[in-house]
């Protein structure tokens, strides 16, 4: 009997430039996440959660409502708005030739900000380059942040790193890298070390949905599961990895939260544009971690409104207006509307806050530019040779001499 010919399947996104934006391939139903299981619940009873969606904003009487005090929500809103204004400003600064490179997290601000606020100051975050909001929510000095972007004389990283690839130990923010997923396992190792030491601190690691295809993602999950590490492992599923849609990372088959199932750890799928849902899911996972119940994988469903970076033009591969059709809306608007509806905020106060933040940013940028924007100022060239090793070897000594410094 003649066998039918095989055919190769290549995933394609639902819409390309010129097409009508579509997201009907994604489910936004609460599903199993309509309930909020007690955080002590055994993993075996949580296996339906990765297919639901944890939501609070816009859901009447959501089981996951963290019932935050208004001032906490206002602080979150402020940090999110600050993040957006900051990023818009330095995206423009790239067009003006003041930074060599920049990345925005537009549409994803709630994730870094809510998690930064919900976790303890002594917990440790192993970030991606799209959670700058973590630093702003913790009050990292604006001018110092801009000095890093400018690689100027006061750059805390001494001119060695691309803009946005910050490192801020005192703010619980691990050194960033452009390699994908290579720090996910560090979060697990750090958490294991904390557990080994009888400490109380936990770790949070981030990757994007595209990075779930990297071996490092699965290695980290394996170690986290095997050693029951006190760590929260977050996948920010923003639908796009540069020009590659999430389907090429496997999103057509299952959810990213469901990757947890094979490791025997809880997986939560969370509305990543919902400040309160993120907060609540983070606290739920943190409670488990702190009680020696081990890791949780959280998928944050969100949308990358901006291009991948200043080097990217998303209109080349997706509908120009796709972001406007994103069903989970805008995280800033949603929290603001919630606060206004609850009588804890007003449009006037919002306007006033934005003006204040704008002025603050302008002042900080001005101060950093007094030191110098990219290329106008740089750290001493000797910094090129420092910190390769704790103590330099003869190569550094000789090569510095060769360069005449």
């Amino acid at each position, binding site marked *: 009997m003649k066998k039918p010919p095989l055919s190769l399947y290549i995933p394609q996104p639902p819409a390309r430039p010129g097409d009508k934006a579509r997201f009907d391939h994604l489910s936004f139903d609460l599903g199993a996440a309509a309930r909020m299981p007690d955080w002590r619940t055994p993993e075996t009873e949580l296996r339906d959660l990765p297919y639901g969606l944890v939501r609070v904003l816009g859901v009447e009487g959501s089981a996951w409502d963290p019932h935050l005090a208004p001032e906490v929500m206002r602080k979150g809103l402020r940090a999110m708005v600050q993040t957006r204004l900051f990023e818009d400003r330095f995206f423009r600064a790239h067009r003006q030739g003041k930074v060599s490179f920049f990345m925005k997290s537009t549409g994803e601000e709630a994730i870094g900000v809510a998690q930064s606020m919900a976790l303890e100051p002594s917990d440790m975050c192993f970030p991606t380059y799209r959670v700058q909001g973590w630093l702003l929510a913790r009050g990292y000095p604006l001018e110092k942040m801009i000095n890093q972007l400018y690689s100027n004389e006061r750059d805390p990283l*001494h001119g*060695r790193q691309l803009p946005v690839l910050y490192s801020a130990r005192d703010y619980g923010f691990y050194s960033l890298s452009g390699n994908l997923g*290579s720090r996910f*396992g560090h*979060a697990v*190792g*750090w*958490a294991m*070390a904390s557990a080994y030491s009888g400490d109380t601190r936990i770790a949070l690691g981030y990757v994007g949905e595209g990075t779930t295809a990297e071996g490092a993602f699965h290695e980290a999950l394996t170690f986290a599961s095997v050693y029951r590490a006190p760590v929260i492992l977050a996948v920010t599923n923003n639908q796009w990895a540069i020009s590659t849609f999430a389907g090429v990372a496997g999103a057509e088959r299952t959810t990213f939260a469901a990757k947890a199932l094979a490791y025997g750890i809880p997986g939560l799928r969370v509305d990543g544009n919902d400040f309160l849902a993120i907060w609540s899911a983070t606290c739920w996972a943190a409670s488990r971690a702190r009680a020696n119940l081990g890791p949780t994988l959280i998928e944050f469903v969100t949308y990358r409104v901006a291009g991948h970076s200043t080097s990217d033009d998303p209109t080349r591969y997706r509908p120009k207006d796709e972001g406007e059709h994103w069903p989970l809306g805008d995280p800033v608007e949603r929290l603001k509307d919630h606060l206004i509806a609850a009588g804890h905020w007003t449009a006037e106060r919002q306007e006033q806050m934005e003006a204040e933040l704008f002025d603050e940013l302008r002042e900080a940028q001005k101060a950093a530019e007094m030191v110098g924007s990219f290329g106008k100022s740089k750290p001493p060239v000797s910094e090129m040779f420092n910190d390769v090793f704790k103590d330099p*070897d003869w190569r550094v000594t000789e090569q510095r001499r060769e360069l005449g410094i």
Partner: protein
Amino acid sequence: MPSMNMIQALNSALDVKLADDPRTLVFGEDVGYFGGVFRVTEGLQAKHGTKRCFDTPLSEGGIIATAIGMGVYGLRPVAEIQFADYILPAFDQIVSEAARLRYRSGGEFWAPITIRSPYGGGIFGGQTHSQSPEALFAHVVGIKTVIPSTPYDAKGLLIAAIEEDDPVIFFEPKRLYNGPFDGRHDQALRTWAGLPEAEVPEGHYKIPLGKAAVVREGAEATVLAYGTMVHVAKAGIADSGVDAELIDLRSIVPLDIETVTASVQKTGRCVILHEASRFGGYGAELSALVQERCFWMLKSPIERVCGWDTPYPHAFEWDYFPGPARLARALLKVMENS
């Protein structure tokens, strides 16, 4: 003083560090209860507990990522990669993370980790249990690479590596685990018993990284070697009849350039010996450094005696392995020029 083979000496180093520093953890594939496929971690779990010495998933990338995270926290993990041939899944972690962390974070974070791994041939291990990948790591700025040649050095260097604040790759010449091997594969096996370099103190001592050992003084030529090749060099020098100075580099990064330079300036001739294939090998760097620093003192072109530029071949082990006869020929060749 007790006599130890290299396995026992390495085990003793780990034992000393586990006992004197609660930040020390030892882990890797099969290293826990079983004590490692070469027995280097034997008894450590029973003595120090399952939290100090344990088995890991078969995941070299995961092992090193975990070690880095622990190092960042403040521990001093010692991770074993079962064979150097299997270290490549961890290459991204070693190169992009461990080696770069201090630099890219402006000194905020670093990875004080030690990666132990048996390397090298001479055991009929074929392509996947015999390779010498040290040049891949020597090229990476930000990590140190150490290779002992005796039980005494193995213990002192491993303790120094664990106490380093920078990441260290510690390659253990597996052909030397049970006894010295001079490349004469058709002769009876020798053990370390009774040899002076197998006299190993029980307690804590260190051999600083970046300090070579002059194993044999000589006036006519300098032989640069490390690991198993130090023993091959002794035999090759004896066979050649050349009064050669033998330098055991002990760590290839940092390199003891002063000892190397002083010796070649004295002898005027240099032969470099390593098991790894020749092209782009660590010998190429040594050769370049020596000619840059000693060109006007050289009486002869520098010679390299290395593995051939082929994968490590199983049936042709002794055709591939650079033995004493090849070194002796190279020494006689450099002696032709005065």
